[in-house]
């Protein structure tokens, strides 16, 4: 798919995730999961990634269909600007009109409230699952497992299936706690993971950490589609407003200071030993500034931090030997420090 997109003229340096999609579209909409339908309206809500804009512009040109650019202002600080919310709410209202026109159906606010109520329920359950990683050993890998667990809340949020799914998932985690089964049988290191996974080499990547007994207790990637674990919930009583708030509160829409703060909070609350920054070439929304983040953690906050690079979509940028070298060196020295500390203690 990526190659297909590069044939069309996309540079090898632009986001591989987007190229995957564009390649799929150019491939007559046929991907590994079958054929997708041609859209009547494209809605682009790009929380924190300008690349999305370019992506949807390309799609709109390809399908020759209308594109609604749902603009989400970048989050600049912990306080929310009233103007941001106002702007997004008027956008939502325009979008409602547009949808009414295309579908010929009336907007039904009660239905939306129902959806949000179910969203909320699923969100509560999801947060419980995330919080379970506070236990030692952790019954849940908040990165390698979370990236799969998180899917329904992004694509099926508001449906009953979604609620049921999280109920089942929660039950599974609870069972794990009771039986003491953990994703990493012998938990040696607890880390917080920043950055998306290298999808094409997901297994290999996980193995590199598993061999060192590493469990991820927190991750930022599982928050790209919404951050609920600090209390935000969709509110059926303020439907549009909470949708607007939700859009602001996505991880990639956070500025660097907020991202650092959030990761640091995870470090402390989840009792982690180290931070792993996985910097992917494709995604500047994530990676631009990660090196600076590394400076903050290592030098200012004195958190052992491992910085590794590969890509989230393009398999060509994944080099197992190099990653292994870095990961080994990092945990080797952590282990060594532990032993030395243990001796002097």
């Amino acid at each position, binding site marked *: 798919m990526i190659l297909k997109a590069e044939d069309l003229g996309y*540079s090898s*340096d*632009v986001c591989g995730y987007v190229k995957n999609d564009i390649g799929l579209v150019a491939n007559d909409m046929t991907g590994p999961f079958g054929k997708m339908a041609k859209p009547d309206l494209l809605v682009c809500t790009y929380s924190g990634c300008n*690349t999305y804009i370019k992506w949807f512009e*390309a799609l709109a040109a390809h399908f020759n269909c209308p594109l609604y*650019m749902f603009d989400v202002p970048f989050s600049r600080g912990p306080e929310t600007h009233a103007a941001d919310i106002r702007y997004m709410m008027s956008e939502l209202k325009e979008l409602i009109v547009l949808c009414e026109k295309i579908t010929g159906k009336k907007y039904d606010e009660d239905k939306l409230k129902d959806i949000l109520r179910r969203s909320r329920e699923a969100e509560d359950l999801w947060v419980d699952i995330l919080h379970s990683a506070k236990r030692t050993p952790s019954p849940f890998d908040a990165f390698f497992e979370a990236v799969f667990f998180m899917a329904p809340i992004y694509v099926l949020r508001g449906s009953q299936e979604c609620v049921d799914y999280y109920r089942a998932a929660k039950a599974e985690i609870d069972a794990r706690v009771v039986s003491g089964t953990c994703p990493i049988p012998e938990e040696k290191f607890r880390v917080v993971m920043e950055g998306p996974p290298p999808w094409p080499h997901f297994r290999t990547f996980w193995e590199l950490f598993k061999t060192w007994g590493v469990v991820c207790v927190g991750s930022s990637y599982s928050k790209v589609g919404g951050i609920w674990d600090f209390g935000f919930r969709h509110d059926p009583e303020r439907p549009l407003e909470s949708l607007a708030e939700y859009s602001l509160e996505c991880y990639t829409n956070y*500025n660097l200071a907020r991202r650092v703060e959030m990761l640091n909070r995870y470090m402390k609350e989840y009792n982690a030993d180290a931070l792993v920054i996985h910097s992917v070439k494709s995604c500047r929304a994530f*990676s631009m500034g990660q090196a*600076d983040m590394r400076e903050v953690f290592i030098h200012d906050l004195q958190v052992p931090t491992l910085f590794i*690079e590969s890509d989230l979509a393009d398999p060509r940028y994944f080099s197992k030997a190099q990653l292994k070298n870095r990961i080994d060196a990092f945990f080797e020295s952590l282990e060594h420090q532990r032993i030395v500390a243990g001796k002097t203690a």
Partner: protein
Amino acid sequence: MRTQPVMKFEERIAWCKEQLEDPTFPTLREFKGRNGTRAPIVGNFPVWAPQEIAHAAGALPVTIAGGGSSVEIDHADSRVQSFVCSISRSTLELGLRGYLDPIDAMVFTSICDVARNLGGVFKRNFPKIQTFYLHCPQNVSSPAAVDYFATELRRFRRAMEDFIGDGITDAAIARSVGVFNEHRTALADLYALRREHPEKISATESYLLLRASQLMPREEHTAILRSTFAELEARPTRRRDKIRVLIEGSFCEQPPWELIEAIEDAGCYIVDDDFLLGPRWYDTPVKLGEDPIRSMAEAYVKYSVTSSIRHYGDRPRADHFAHKLKENRVDGVIFCAAKFCEPALYDYVLLKDVADQAGIPHLSFEFEEKMGVFETLRTQVETFVESILLFAD
């Protein structure tokens, strides 16, 4: 600056080149030395910073567009990875080396993922520079966009007011908009001259003039441009056997001037480009209404130039580009994007189709600030020119 003697055109160009190649910002240091804390210097990362408001506050608004080839990236690599555009890395490098010390504030806008996060990096690394981030709305077809941007601009105005400890009146802003408009008109005249008489002023010269404008008071630069026109008219020149080309893709990060020279040497007249230099950000000068802030917001939302760093809603970028090709009567298009600049690289795909449909040949390559060898590039342009000239029968 004010103390500068009157220069002849060639001297002026040489002076501009000197400014460009000195990453320590001599003009800004001089300004600071002369004005001290009385007039702050407000820098911005390229494009869409409300320079007029800073101007109205009595500040010197300047655009900081990277360090060019004269600064080695040495410190900035520890803050920013190697796979982002050079402008963001070298701008940071300038700061880490202390070259940005004369600057009091720095404005970043939402032009791309990189610029946005660079704002965050600046904020942390340079506590002495006040970093300001402005969200430029992308949903320009929404009626709420102008209101929203006006609110953002007012936020900026308040920040500037805090800075100078005094209010900024609407009248002052309107006056500043006027000053910038004059500069815009002069720039438009310069481009018109290049389009009609490319032999009178080379694109390299025009580029150097514009680059220098980013670091000096508008009023002065307008005057320089005006006095230049007369000189250029009088230049004895002969039109050479070259093709007319348009450069597209370097709106934010600017190519080294040697690159432009290499393109010209290889047999091209560059009749237009999309460099967003100086305040060339709108199609026409800002149309002043009753509320100057609102007028600025409208200019951005309704008639800013089409460039890759913004969404254009129902005024698609492709149509605009097709028009530009026709208007400039070009023989070829050179897509010249900064390496790793995603907005440019994405748009290339759309725009090259437009050129294909118009039957206009095109060439594309990527550049970096630090490029030192232009041979490969020249070869490519030569081949391109040959393919148009040698077979023109």
